[in-house]
């Protein structure tokens, strides 16, 4: 394949295992390894270290391509958080609220998960911890109504941000995806242009199914950003590479723990370096 003594089959196998092991997936891994071939033939790379460097370049160019810094001067800015069950949506909202509060913002949280046991209480506790108001209805209430109320409250109080929590849902459940679409329509009624951000929360321990999650959530409501959680664990989250490539949507932040300060901006270079560890 490469025809050089220094770059041999073992080296390629090692790289393949590295990338597959980081959940990049077979398709992207094989494509990257194929794309290395001309670099080797042109003698741009000659050993494992330079092969890895080249691979990192491929990844960085995919991940950096989509960084769109939208200067949002709308008020309140409404952000909807969606994703499958247990990925860290509620916790991420708490963390984001903490960050925005530190920056001096006025924030309203919406307890849009009216289904799961303890969901409202969980967000209420986060609201208490951070010191921001939480709009909550009783369990079983219409989630879109909670979202509507929260945006109305945000408009009335001249808040800077409304962060909306939603119930976890598998992307293949049409009725639940329809509920999400309805929430987006209702938000548009509450405030034209809302929700200004639609964040898909992905768990770094998730494998290839994250592709299906990204595809179907995007088809349903249009995703504007991705937050990747639990990167303090051993999941590498390499799946965001094919996701960012196909969705053309940036990863904005990463979750690195369960505390209020454990949400940090996504840094492409450090993320790619970590994939190779």
């Amino acid at each position, binding site marked *: 394949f490469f025809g050089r003594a220094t770059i041999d089959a073992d080296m390629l196998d090692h790289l393949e*295992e590295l990338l*597959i*092991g*980081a*959940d990049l*997936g*077979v398709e992207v891994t094989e494509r990257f390894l194929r794309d290395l071939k001309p670099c080797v033939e042109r003698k741009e790379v000659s050993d494992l270290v330079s092969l890895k460097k080249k691979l990192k370049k491929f990844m960085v160019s995919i991940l950096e391509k989509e960084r769109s810094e939208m200067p949002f001067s709308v008020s309140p800015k409404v952000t909807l958080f969606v994703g*499958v*069950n*247990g*990925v*860290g949506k509620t916790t991420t909202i*708490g963390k984001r609220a903490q960050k925005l509060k530190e920056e001096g913002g006025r924030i309203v949280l919406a307890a849009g998960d009216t*289904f*799961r*046991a*303890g*969901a409202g*209480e*969980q967000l*209420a*506790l*986060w609201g208490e*911890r951070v010191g921001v108001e939480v709009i909550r209805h009783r369990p079983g209430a219409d989630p879109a109504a909670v979202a509507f109320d929260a945006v109305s409250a945000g408009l009335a109080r001249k808040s800077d941000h409304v962060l909306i929590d939603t119930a*976890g849902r*598998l*992307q*293949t*459940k049409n009725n639940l995806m329809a509920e999400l679409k309805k929430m987006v329509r209702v938000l548009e009624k509450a405030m034209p242009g809302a929700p200004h951000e639609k964040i898909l929360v992905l*768990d770094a*321990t*998730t*494998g*290839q*199914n*994250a592709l*299906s999650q990204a595809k179907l959530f995007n088809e349903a409501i249009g995703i504007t950003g991705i937050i990747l959680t*639990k990167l*303090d*664990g*051993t*999941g*590498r989250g390499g*799946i965001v590479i094919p996701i960012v490539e196909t969705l053309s949507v940036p990863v904005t932040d990463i979750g690195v723990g*369960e505390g209020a300060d454990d949400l940090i901006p996504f840094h492409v270079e450090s993320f790619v370096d970590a994939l190779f560890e």
Partner: protein
Amino acid sequence: NLTKKLDSIFKKIRGKGLLTDKNIDEALREVRLALLEADVHFKVAKSFIEGVREKAVGKEILEGLAPGQQVVKIVWKELSRLMGEEGKTIALSSQPPTLIMLVGLQGSGKTTTVGKLARRFKREGKRVLLVAGDLQRPAAVSQLQTLGKGLDVPVMDPGTNKDPVIVMEKGVKQGRKEGFDVVIFDTAGRLQVDEALMAELVQMKSGISPDEILFVADAMTGQTAVDVARKFHEDLGLTGIILTKTEGDARGGALLSIRSVTGAPIKFIGTGEKLEDLEPFHPDRMASRILG
């Protein structure tokens, strides 16, 4: 799908003969691809393929079976063997209460599964006590209490106790004292690389001596499933696995990875968010979705 791919590979082989290394290579590449796309760990996939190759090479192409079918048959057999038997549910201890402890990563579905198990045992006429051993996640105790209320199953109140190990030990005492048949312990989600929290689990185990330590794993877990399961198993000695969120389109290859590093039987699968959504494990159904 995989069967069609294998069939087309083997169409080229006509008549009787042996399954050779060469014609098997191509087929095994397709199988390996299917496993990796299904989130099976690459090492697990590799050793699985080698196992199939050993059993396939040099075999007579059996009368009436297309060579492709024969390889598929071997793959199927090996996969089912790896998955383990079906219907291995939870046996009740001869000395009640049976103590069942649920462990796993953050968000895998433990608390909900505690509720599901409680509902199942209650419907079998057993008296169940739930112990809220997660004192760290906001409203985790409240979540379990809400589930318990809905089932009319008591949940032990941790009170002002700050130490989950002590709460778990109190749970055992209360379970014995009040004659419960089953006590189910919820624990906080934790990373297997968090040494302090893994040590806490080991402390809990020695404090309560559970009959079952069930690893609750998310069906969509990727390559890291091997590392996670191995560590939980090394530290605790898992007696069973529950795979959650299986009703979606995740292929569930993590299950193969978890099985191969723990050898623990799959006790149940979670098939939804409601407390009734707990089903016994069918290895053949799981095998077909992993193979795609």
